């Protein structure tokens, strides 16, 4: 397109493992797309008429793709709406959010899907990809109009924070879902074992007098679903895996060639159940923070590739939902702005290479959901994150952009932060230092 603005990002370290890119170079954005990139691009200087951004040796990576975000767009907007979530997202280098249904925003009709997509376009800070509910009202019984939801643009099906408990319904969802090539995403928790549970079952729950949720509640739901997957040849994705047993079972299923994928979230490799401490409700999550041995298994699962994706599991809650006795507090933590530094902990700690770590939040989720995102290639959308990989800072709830401040990582020193975020060729965020 004639007259499209051209911006050259020079002196960058380009990182996109999926495209085999990792090294010094430059990248040219033309309009909304990546026009060119490479180590020798602009070796003879940037031509006139092209705006130049000096990356000063920092990492230029694809904008992050966060496949698990809850917003409260149609109700409880005081907690977070699409605009505030998108602002938080770009502050954290995230340029694509997949929106999961919640109890008050079930996304079980094409109208709701179109509403979210339209709102996302209007927000124009990130891509917005809604999931559709598997069952009407996410109540676990009657299937939604999955085909119409798929035509409306959903990227997968999930009942969000609710486990799809009924085996027959899950079987039919997996089976019917094969028509559309979209994954069925499960919250892996046997509800009858988790009922009334507040945190991981173990020594700490016993000491605190809180009802525990056994780690087995996770793996048994996954084991059941894998049997149904074998019956149906569907696509199955396990959300936020947290236990060693679950990761082992998923690894074995992958080895058998089953179409199963999974993700985890930073709390599950960055924290363990001790974070609950003296009834800290910000550490009340679903699934709950687990034992240290499980946390180690999550890191290992990321390292060996059993866990495909890291998602933020962004679930905003207002103070009144958290300033309650532990048993009454709502579960969940925000994560959009802290996803990047916490993923980089895996790199700084030596568990993953830089390219591998970033792939878990860029190319891997994009491939899983079939999105045109998460890559540094010619012609791809110019959604980029400029990352100071070594920059030290401290996560403080008051500094976060999100409307809700419920981060389980409050006070944590981290390394690596987003310097700038480009969405559709436009600079949508620049850090002020």
């Amino acid at each position, binding site marked *: 397109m004639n007259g499209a603005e051209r911006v050259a990002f020079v002196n960058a370290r380009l990182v996109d493992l999926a495209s085999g890119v990792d090294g010094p170079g430059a990248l040219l954005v033309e309009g909304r797309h990546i026009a060119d990139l490479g180590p020798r691009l602009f070796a003879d200087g940037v031509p006139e008429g092209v705006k130049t951004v000096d990356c000063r040796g920092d990492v230029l990576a694809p904008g992050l793709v966060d496949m698990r975000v809850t917003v409260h767009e149609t109700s409880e907007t005081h907690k977070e709406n699409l605009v505030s979530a998108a602002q938080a997202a770009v502050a954290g280098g995230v340029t694509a959010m997949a929106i999961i249904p919640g109890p008050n925003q079930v996304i079980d009709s094409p109208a709701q899907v179109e509403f979210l997509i339209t709102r996302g376009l209007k927000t124009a800070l990130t891509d917005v990809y809604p999931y559709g509910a598997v069952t009407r009202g996410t109540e676990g019984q009657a299937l939604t109009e999955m085909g119409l939801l798929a035509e409306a643009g959903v990227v997968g099906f999930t009942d969000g924070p609710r486990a799809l408990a009924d085996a027959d319904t899950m079987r039919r969802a997996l089976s019917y879902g094969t028509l559309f090539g979209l994954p069925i995403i499960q919250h892996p928790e046997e509800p009858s074992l988790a*009922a*009334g549970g507040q945190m991981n*079952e*173990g*020594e700490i*729950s*016993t*000491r*605190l*007098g*809180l009802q*525990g949720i*056994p780690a087995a509640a996770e793996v048994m739901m996954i084991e059941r679903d894998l049997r149904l997957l074998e019956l149906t040849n569907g696509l199955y994705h396990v959300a936020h895996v947290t236990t060693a047993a679950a990761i082992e079972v998923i690894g074995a299923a992958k080895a058998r060639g089953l179409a199963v994928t999974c993700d985890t979230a930073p709390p599950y490799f960055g924290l363990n159940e001790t974070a609950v401490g*003296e*009834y800290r409700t910000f550490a009340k999550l679903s699934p709950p923070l687990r034992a240290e041995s499980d946390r180690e298994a999550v890191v290992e699962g990321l390292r060996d590739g059993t866990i495909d994706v890291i998602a933020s599991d962004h679930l905003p809650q207002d103070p*009144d939902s958290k*300033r*309650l*006795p*532990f*048993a*009454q507090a709502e579960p969940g933590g925000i994560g959009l702005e802290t996803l990047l530094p916490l993923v980089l902990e895996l790199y700084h700690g030596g568990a993953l290479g830089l390219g591998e770590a970033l792939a878990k939040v860029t190319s891997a989720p994009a491939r899983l959901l079939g999105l045109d995102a998460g890559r540094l290639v010619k012609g791809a959308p110019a959604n980029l994150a400029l990352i100071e990989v070594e920059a030290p800072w401290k996560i403080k709830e008051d500094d976060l952009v999100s409307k809700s401040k419920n981060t389980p990582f409050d006070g944590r020193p981290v390394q690596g932060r987003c310097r700038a975020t480009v969405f559709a060729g436009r600079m949508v965020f620049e850090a002020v230092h």
Partner: protein
Amino acid sequence: MRSARGQAYSPVLMNTPAPDTRFAPRHILGIEGLSPVEITYLLDAADGFVALNRSRQKKSDSLRGLTLINLFFEDSTRTRTSFELAGKRLGADVINMSVATSSVHKGESLIDTAMTLNAMHPDVLVVRHPHSGAVQLLSQKVTCAVINAGDGSHEHPTQALLDALTIRRRKGTIGGLVVTICGDIAHSRVARSNIHLLITMGARVRLVGPPTLIPPMIERMGVEVFHDMKEGLEGADIVMILRLQLERMRGTFVPSLKENFHFYGLDADKLAAAKPDALVMHPGPINRGVEIDTSVADDIDRSVITEQVEMGVAVRMACLEAVTGTAAATPAPKARRKNKARP
């Protein structure tokens, strides 16, 4: 008054006040974290009130002018009455507030209730709540002292202290005793507070109950677990019986009260496994024929259940003085408090 070096009557040193050896915590929220010295201090202080409570004139005035609010979010008769008596005997103005669970449905949050009461400038809030950790949460939002009168399945510190005082007065010591706690451990705050206290003071603690009522990994608190009641009672000095907390149970933990009594009800036959002079304790309210046989509950040689109730008032008086900083300056000889656990 003597200085640390033993030089008596130095004009300078005479004006130096003796180090304050009182235990004056801001709140009493649980036994976990209290040291043997602190526990011993509270027991000594409580012991001092037993005689007063037995005399005809029961009034002291250490809390005169202070206000105590009993804030109970859960039904209670004995604990509330015990705190009320304790407060009144020390001269405090006592108000009882029973916040039925329905008022939570009116929309006021725990913290709002706490802030409202706090604005009336009470000196002590005694709080019971059905949720674990709720009293601690409330204590962070008020400026007065808070005593936990039981939070969910977490802690009930004054119950553990009154149990310890009962034991110490009968047995002379706590360290080295074998204490068997039987029944619904999983839902019991009394069990948790007692475990913390007894282990801290050097007792051996055994738990007896069906596997469904023993919470996971409780061995990590330093106890031994038994599922056969007679085995668990073998050679025990103290037998504590807990009630089945049916109101906290979701689903079936024991098939029936009859079956529970058959395996875990304390009767003379099972009690015979314990030491001949073993004491039988129960935090109440007791359910005869469910967890304890009437003949055992009423055996004046063995059962100290009513004595526990008596010690409860004394312990709560000691706790009220501790959190209000109104205890007498020299309640007990220094040397004794320096000992970790009494032998």
